[in-house]
């Protein structure tokens, strides 16, 4: 008489996931993320941001101040292998009031506007690199435009308006300064942005 067949044994022992433990860790992490997001939006904690693309941005501020503005030069290589020079500004202890930043994106279903406003923005350090400065108006007393112009090592500054991709239009305060630049990247540390308001849509107005 044959003995009963032994129970099936898996060919390879496999690990398992303990889902209750997974849920506990995931839930607490997501809660912490939500708290961090809320704290950063309200300005309670600073964040660091960096952007490398060329963006068609319009930027206006009511007032602007920085403890120091140190220009330097750098180099980069474009996708097609062309080496270009860029002008880099290192700003310390930056304070911006009445910030408005907008971006209009053209899509197959129409143009959409994204506008971000914040009454106050401070940063310990802010670095921005300009591919070129296309037009420069009167800024404010804090920003010494003469030195910036003299240090421009730029080649073949492109012509265009702020609606073209890759141009940043800047207007500061009542002096109505206007700067159109090609911004290559922006990087900031200890950014403290208070009471951010974000609106987007097809019928939204840009900053100016």
């Amino acid at each position, binding site marked *: 008489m044959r003995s009963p067949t032994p129970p099936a044994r898996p060919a390879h*022992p496999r690990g398992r*996931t303990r889902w209750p*433990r*997974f849920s506990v860790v995931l839930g607490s992490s997501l809660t912490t993320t939500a708290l961090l997001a809320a704290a950063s939006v309200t300005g309670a904690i600073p*964040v*660091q941001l960096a952007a490398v693309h060329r963006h068609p941005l319009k930027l206006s501020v009511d007032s602007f101040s920085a403890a120091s503005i140190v220009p330097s030069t750098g*180099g980069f290589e474009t996708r097609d292998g062309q080496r270009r020079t860029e002008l880099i500004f290192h700003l310390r202890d930056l304070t911006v009031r009445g910030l408005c930043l907008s971006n209009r994106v053209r899509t197959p279903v129409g143009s959409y506007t994204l506008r971000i406003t914040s009454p106050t923005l401070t940063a310990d350090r802010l670095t921005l690199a300009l591919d070129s400065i296309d037009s420069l108006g009167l800024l404010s007393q804090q920003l010494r435009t003469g030195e910036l112009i003299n240090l421009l090592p730029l080649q073949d500054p492109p012509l265009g308006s702020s609606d073209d991709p890759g141009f940043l239009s800047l207007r500061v305060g009542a002096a109505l300064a206007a700067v159109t630049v090609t911004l290559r990247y922006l*990087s900031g540390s200890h950014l403290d942005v208070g009471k951010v308001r974000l609106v987007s849509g097809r019928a939204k107005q840009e900053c100016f």
Partner: protein
Amino acid sequence: MTPRYDEPSFGEPPHEPAHEHESLSPQMVALYAWAGERPWLGGTVTTLSGLAIAVLPNKGFTVVVLPGVAGLSGFVLGGLIIACGMFMLFSPQLHGILGIATVLLSLVSFVTTNIGGYVIGLLLGIVGGSLGFAWRPPDPD
């Protein structure tokens, strides 16, 4: 006498692979066995998270000059999270500490690296780290 669990009996194969894997190639069977001994899902998701944190903020970046602190921290944190994912795959006995480290690094990336690689890397890191932490090794028997 009841036969022992691991003894072959009556000419039957010892580990009942009669229907399991019979349609798979030997390489796939080996891969299946390899993956079963480690938190492969957590390790894979964690590695993808590190890639997202390191690459997404620097998309299209043709490097000569690094873009400051925030850009650099993306490479550092992304690299650390990728390392955690690799260790999960190749040193599965460390899955607990690696899972918690991944979650913590992902949370740190929120404030230091473009909101955790535009949130994508952050969420992948949290899920991957949680999967790695909650993984249980196969029973020795």
